[in-house]
């Protein structure tokens, strides 16, 4: 245990250092001549129109919410999946009940039009 997570911890640290090294090298080597035209926001070569904040669709949020519920559900299913070999068949049925309850949620969201990209 200790060894596994220690390894992954060191991996994370070195994994952060390795991308940073070329960036630091680039900062030393590359030219830096900022001027206001180079630094202006890109909008296909023309001047920007309006602010850089626009009204986004609320649909993004709905999808994120449905994703959250199903993400938690699938994470619950992992310990269940690991017991299927040892325990008898009714364990499979318990899992099917779990999945079934959440599928009704998906069907409800579908029928209510929440899954449309209006």
């Amino acid at each position: 245990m200790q060894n596994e997570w220690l390894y992954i911890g060191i991996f994370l640290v070195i994994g952060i250092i390795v991308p940073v090294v070329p960036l630091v090298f680039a900062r030393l080597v590359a030219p830096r001549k900022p001027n206001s035209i180079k630094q202006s926001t890109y909008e296909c070569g023309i001047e920007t129109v309006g602010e850089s904040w626009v009204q986004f669709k609320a649909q993004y949020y709905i999808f994120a919410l449905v994703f959250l519920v199903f993400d938690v559900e699938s994470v619950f299913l992992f310990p269940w999946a690991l017991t299927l070999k040892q325990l008898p068949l009714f364990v499979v049925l318990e899992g099917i009940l779990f999945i079934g309850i959440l599928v009704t949620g998906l069907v409800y969201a579908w029928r209510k039009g929440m899954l449309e990209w209006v």
Partner: protein
Amino acid sequence: MTFWNNPINFIGNWLTGLLTGWHLPVALATILLYIIGITVLIVFAMTLDIGLVWVERKVVARFQDRLGPNRIGPFGLIQPVADIIKMVIKEDITPAGADKIIYNIAPVLAATSVILLWAILPLASTIYGVDLNVGLLYIVAAGALGTLAIIMAGWSSNNKYALLGAFRMVSNMISYEIPMVIILLIPTILANTMSVQGITQAQSGMWFAILSPLALLIFVISAIAELGRSPFDLNEAESEIVAGFHIEYTGMKFGWFYAGELLHAFTFGGFMAILFFGGYGGFFGLEKLAAFGWLNIPFVQALVFITKAMIGYWVIMWVKYSVPRIRIDHMLAFNWKFLVPLALVVLVNTAVLNKVLIDLPGWLYVLGMFGSNIVIGFITVEILRAHGRKQRSLTPPSPQPLHPSGHMSQGERGV
């Protein structure tokens, strides 16, 4: 334990002996060894990444019936080195009004989230980083960090197209994560373990691709969507929002997004190989015969794994360069209305049949699992056909039939 059987532990033990002989405490020696091993692994991954740039450009060229880079070095093999040098010496332009700290962290996080996946990738039965007993969820966790990097990049660029691209990309990635996680449950059930090594070793008799081809199909589709590659690359749609969330990135920062995507694609090819095609093993029991004993040598296994990963990566590239882009609403509808229910059906089917058929002799088990997948696939296609038929009958016929000569009738022209 010889060098050929277990190269990493052999070298590790030798180095530990050397370092403790120099009066270093064991714990420090272990940490030093970890650092050396990890650096070697990451450098290997990065070198592979550079090679992948060449592979990608040559393959896309061949798909588009042209030659690809062939000037620099034989067959253009030195091209990626030229690319990297170019990216490093390009000027790094930070847009005005960008949030500097987040702007700089985003590419590093994107690259790190891909590098982290190499900690659990088993190149051979004794060449791997760690064998986490929750390996499959670790893959999903590293993907979650990548999602965060994209939001950070999109928001900190102070550019509405970057933000739009980031939103679309993140919605895409999180939506397609659900079928992927559900499909990851299937090798878990079939192998009775979540560790990646365990899943590879459980396939020494039969590949999971044969036991559950529908799972392989759904995994490939979700993996391509997770990677953000065509046909799901709405964030990089050059004709629509010009490079999406990495519009304002130049030089090496963009390089990390690009190289990270290629390495991510290759790593997912590797996971496809591990989860469904037996990874470094999967020789259907051939390696137990005396004549094929050389199949157990770790270096041969590593070669087998890299070959299978390359084939997986080639399939991903094949799809990218052959299929047109899908619209965002079609993408999301496809996921939530088709892939998620299908994945759940395949999961339930696998769970039930695995329990019921496990006691039957081998070939009957394989036949049962494979057959059930074919039946589900057939029923799905029938449902889709019926749905398509209904959609077509609902669409009204076109209002103005064309004139027999192919031109529109006189009244229509010139309006």
